[in-house]
């Protein structure tokens, strides 16, 4: 199922801001504007997963070891030998499967994210918008061999190289070479690691926004007889409206006072009796939004206060 296709995307994409949003058009033709996971988040998610894997292994070995020791104390010679190898087999298989399939298993689940990614609000998606296939998940994780384990091997081996200068240089070259794979995400815009590159995937933010109250509801309960003239209500544009919205949602008294001050000055507002900063701002927000939205319906999108549209 390819996504970029038949239906053209509706045009009004408001300038690719900040460079972190990526166009991602669904088959229905709506751009979801995905955000790419930052390098720091990706690294943190991986470290968390690494910690989970190591912890699991340690707990697992301890459990198997204790069970083995308990049974071995029963004292039957044959049993003890059998147990020793059974413990070792379990360890070998556990290590192999955790190393290779921990990531595959979780990324194939409904959330397409390992526990580490889930904690950081990340998930894996196919870059072309199609299904995240098991092939892609397998490929992106098989590549971890050269991104993580190969550099690690060189790092560990370099410690063992000792004083031999030739071996030292070889190790240095090896570390530089494999470091290139490990740091691959830093050299491209979409923070693709080698595995993403090969599998056609990327890692995007999947935040869980809560539906907050409409600020207009708050304004209604606040009441107050604020009446703004057309000029006053039209002093600002959409950008300023969004700043005001943030200020109102954050409810920081100091900021509200400062912002109210600026707006009053700008629109030459005469302070009425019993008027608080909060009630003024919230009334002004309602008035400004009302005006801008009405104009929007007529096709005028006023970007900011400098926009004369």
């Amino acid at each position, binding site marked *: 199922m390819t996504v970029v296709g038949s239906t053209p995307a509706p045009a009004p994409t408001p300038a690719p801001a900040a460079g972190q949003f990526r166009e991602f058009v669904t088959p229905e033709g709506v751009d979801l504007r995905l955000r790419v996971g930052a390098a720091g988040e990706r690294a943190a998610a991986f470290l968390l997963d690494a910690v989970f894997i190591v912890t699991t292994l340690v707990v697992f070995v301890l459990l198997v070891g204790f069970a083995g020791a308990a049974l071995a104390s029963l004292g039957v010679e044959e049993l003890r030998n059998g147990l020793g190898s059974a413990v070792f087999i379990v360890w070998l298989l556990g290590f192999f499967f955790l190393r290779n399939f921990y990531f595959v298993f979780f990324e194939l689940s409904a959330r397409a994210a390992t526990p580490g990614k889930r904690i950081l609000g990340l998930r894996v998606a196919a*870059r072309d918008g199609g299904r995240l296939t098991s092939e892609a998940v*397998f490929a992106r994780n098989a590549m971890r061999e050269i991104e993580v384990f190969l550099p690690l091997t060189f790092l560990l081996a370099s410690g063992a190289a000792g004083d031999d200068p030739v071996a030292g240089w070889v190790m240095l070259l090896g570390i530089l070479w494999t470091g290139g794979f490990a740091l691959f995400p830093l050299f491209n815009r979409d923070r693709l690691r080698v595995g993403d590159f090969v599998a056609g995937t990327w890692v995007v933010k999947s935040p*869980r926004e809560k539906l907050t109250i*409409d600020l207009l509801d708050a304004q209604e309960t606040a009441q107050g007889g604020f009446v703004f003239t057309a000029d006053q209500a039209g002093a600002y544009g959409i950008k300023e409206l969004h700043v005001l919205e943030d200020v109102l949602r954050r409810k920081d008294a100091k900021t509200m006072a400062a912002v109210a001050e600026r707006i009053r000055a700008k629109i030459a507002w005469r302070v009425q009796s019993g008027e608080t900063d909060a009630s003024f701002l919230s009334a002004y927000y309602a008035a400004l939004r009302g005006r801008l939205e009405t104009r929007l319906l007529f096709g005028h999108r006023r970007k900011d206060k400098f926009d004369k549209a």
Partner: protein
Amino acid sequence: MKALQLKSRRFRAEREGDWRRLESLLARVEGRSAAGLSDEELLAIPVLYRATLSSLSVARATSLDHALIDYLESLSTRAYFFVYGTRAGIGTRLGRFFRETWPAAVRGLWRETLVSLAITIAAAVVGYILVSGDPSWFGGMVGEGLASGRDPTATTAFLRHTLYDDGGKQAPLALLATYLFSHNAQIAIFAFALGFAFCLPTAFLLAQNGLMLGAFFALFVSHGLGFELGGWIFIHGVTELFAIILGGAAGFRIGWRVAFPGDRTRLDAAAEAGRAAAPVVAGVVLMLVVAGLLEGFARQLIQNDWARYAIAISSLIIWTGYFYLPRRTGPRAPILSGSGRAA
């Protein structure tokens, strides 16, 4: 009272119920699995998803409530991933993998497979000729640990002994099989990943493997044990070498497409190659399970040369038949490019 007349507000009041319903359904689906929902609820999700998408479009065009648009974007994204995500059960997926995906992917890599095979054979021949001419080459091709006494100074009796008795003291067979499997599988995955570095390291890995094979043969043939060694190696080696050759082929496909993407962008070419090659590597891991079992159990339990050869030859027939025989079932058999020609 002016606020009530705002269209964006009425719009929100009318649709909010749908959004919340979708949100709660998604929370349940993401929490466990789609199995927790009734058919009715499951069918409601795509409908609610499309309604929310349309809300998002409307909100972007008419509402200036920033928080609302953020919410709708996040909700639509979550729903999108569910609606267009994979929901086939693990059983269905595995069935498809064995019936179609794996053999088709292997057929799709036939060119790379031939290259891998050629490198391995060439390296084995070179290794054989070098060691036959001058046994001192042996040490350079086979590590001391791996040789474990099987070097040019060893006696014929000792070499024969390694082929049949396996050192006298019995390591538990299951342990041996497990160790061999996890070790070899790691190398196969590694060969695949290394392909990304423009094929060269993968070729090196394959050549090393081939040289070692050739060197061992030269050593044992010089003691008149060539036929016996063949049985000892190929009983599992057919499966194992085949797997390693396929792993190498998968690496080659990726390295080659990254280096020479043709008329596509490098990004697209790499992604396409990765998806074509990944099932092969996943399958290689399974082949190495079989190889580990054959090496750990069958080789220790079967001491007759002819029986060993019989297993070797039948495994070759089974694998090649499974991968390369044209099949009628499955209307969508030739999914990958090149599979048609190979079949």
